């Protein structure tokens, strides 16, 4: 720290906003940039696709098992003669909305639990971390299956079932960041100048704890999408809404006749989650400058 040379004045003026620096780092990661573009396209398809391609994914439009490209159906038809492309476009909405909502919920719970545990320490930390451990022991998918099976397969219930089992990683990361940051000088200084606990937690410590939480949240969206796909593959989904996993689940008995009805929707899930994890990697590089040298 002390041996940093004092910079000439023109150099100092060049120092930029940290966001600009992070953006530049992100842009250097070509895979992450490409993934971000792909992700953008998928989101656009989810938002506007159903207007551009209005075919109802539940309508029988042609003979069953018509291979991709034949009879004017780009991706073919499934075992009930339903248009697979329509299913992919309409299914993107469910996957992305549930992925985002469930990730938001688990980040909210995780940050709250982790922040309280890391800030207050003592018995608060003890109790909260025991609860976290309890949720780590529950087999996540089975627990979500139980919730959805007992309380009904509506989209909000599915979102809840995914969010309630996925927050433990965020809680642990938030806690360890809080434990580290709460001992730093600027926190002590704020405390000495009379900042309330709420202000210390959410205005002073949390913003500095954000980088790893953001990276983890990005990954959470990907795993929530995988989670939803798993549930709907097992048939635990709203039967009135089409989703990618559900298409695979309902077509899997027919892989001998038409393997594309399973491989194509799976590819959609794979590409989406891959894009999210590459963007997450890029965010990691951009937000954790210390790790860059590794």
């Amino acid at each position, binding site marked *: 720290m002390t041996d940093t040379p004092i910079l000439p004045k023109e150099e100092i003026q060049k120092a930029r906003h940290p966001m600009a620096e992070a953006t530049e780092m992100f842009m250097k990661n070509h895979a992450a940039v490409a993934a971000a573009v792909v992700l953008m396209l998928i989101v656009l398809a989810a938002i506007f696709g159903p207007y551009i391609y209005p075919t109802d994914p539940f309508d029988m439009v042609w003979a069953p098992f018509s291979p991709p490209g034949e009879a004017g159906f780009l991706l073919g038809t499934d075992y009930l003669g339903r248009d697979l492309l329509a299913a992919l476009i309409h299914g993107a909405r469910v996957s992305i909305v549930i992925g985002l909502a469930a990730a938001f919920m688990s980040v909210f719970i995780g940050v709250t639990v982790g922040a309280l545990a890391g800030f207050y320490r003592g018995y608060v930390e003890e109790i909260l971390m025991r609860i976290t451990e*309890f949720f780590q022991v529950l087999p996540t998918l089975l627990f979500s299956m139980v919730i959805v099976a007992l309380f009904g397969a509506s989209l909000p219930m599915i979102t809840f079932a995914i969010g309630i089992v996925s927050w433990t990683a965020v809680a642990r990361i938030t806690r360890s960041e809080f434990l580290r940051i709460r001992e730093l000088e600027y926190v002590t200084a704020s405390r000495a100048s009379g900042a309330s606990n709420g202000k210390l937690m959410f205005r002073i410590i949390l913003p500095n704890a954000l980088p790893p939480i953001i990276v983890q949240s990005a990954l959470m969206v990907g795993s929530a999408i995988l989670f939803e796909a798993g549930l709907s593959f097992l048939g635990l989904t709203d039967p009135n809404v089409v989703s990618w996993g559900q298409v695979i689940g309902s077509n899997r008995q027919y892989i001998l006749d038409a393997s594309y009805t399973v491989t194509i929707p799976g590819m959609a*899930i794979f590409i989406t989650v*891959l894009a999210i994890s590459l963007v997450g990697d890029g965010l990691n590089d951009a937000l954790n400058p210390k790790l860059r040298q590794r």
Partner: protein
Amino acid sequence: MNLLQTVLTRILYAVLLLIAVLVLNFSLMHLAPGDVADTISQSMGGADAEVLADIRADYGLDKPFLVQLATYIGKVAQFDLGHSFFYNTSVTGLIMQKLPATLLLVITAQVLALVVGVILGVYSARHPNGISSHFVTFLALFGYSAPVFWTGILLLIGFSLHIQWFPVAGMRDVTIEGGFWVHFIDVVRHLVLPVITLSSIFLALYSRLCRATMMEVLGSDYVRTAKAKGLTTREIVYKHALKNSLSPVVTLAGLQFSAVISGAVLVETVFGWPGLGTLAFQSIIARDTPTILGILFFSALVVIVGNLLTDLALRLIDPRVGSKG
């Protein structure tokens, strides 16, 4: 703290966790719309209010919540998880019948993922710019991003339908006759694809972590000392560095038990593997609540026991773990 004391504390803690799982199970059963009396009356084709009240009295459903909870925990302590109305048998018996298949799948997949993950991790750490390093990166991305049931179906299409190397579904071929080894080989043939599918997720995690810790360890001072005193690279890597890079990987593996069980549910469904996952799937379709909750309890038990064993394994690999408390 000596080892026995630690083990006892851990076991006590595990029992507390299990009781917490039971409380959760029971609360879920209570919160869910409809109760056992409704299920029974449905299977009888409807019943009037008086009969419903009788059934509730029979099953103790008219007693206060806490009394019912205590009865439930008491019953589970005697391994009585209730009665499955769909299979018309005891839930414990049903689960005991399916548990070995799941354990076989889960343990084989974990061991395979660990062994191959560590080998890949060590190899690619020694050749950081080689092809194996890129392979580990690729594997990590694929393992994280591909839905496991899709990976399973792809393998099924490739190696059971197109090239018919492995059977399509199940755990054994009932038409086969012969001695122990014939059956053993039969089960192994059925096991190959499900195990590869399930371990693909965790192989990615373990190899990436192992590579990272191994590279860190290889850069440390004591490795330089070992080099200076003239040990060969092979001796350094396998005798000194591996021991130290193994404990983070084993810790991670321990944390993954609940994820492995979750993955197993999907993999079993894809391959028709006759374990707890398939049973869970079927009993959810049949709305067989006692069985579903019994499976949840047993899989939590498997995770807790798995964590305990991991803890002990860590103490064996790295004696410092115990002394830290």
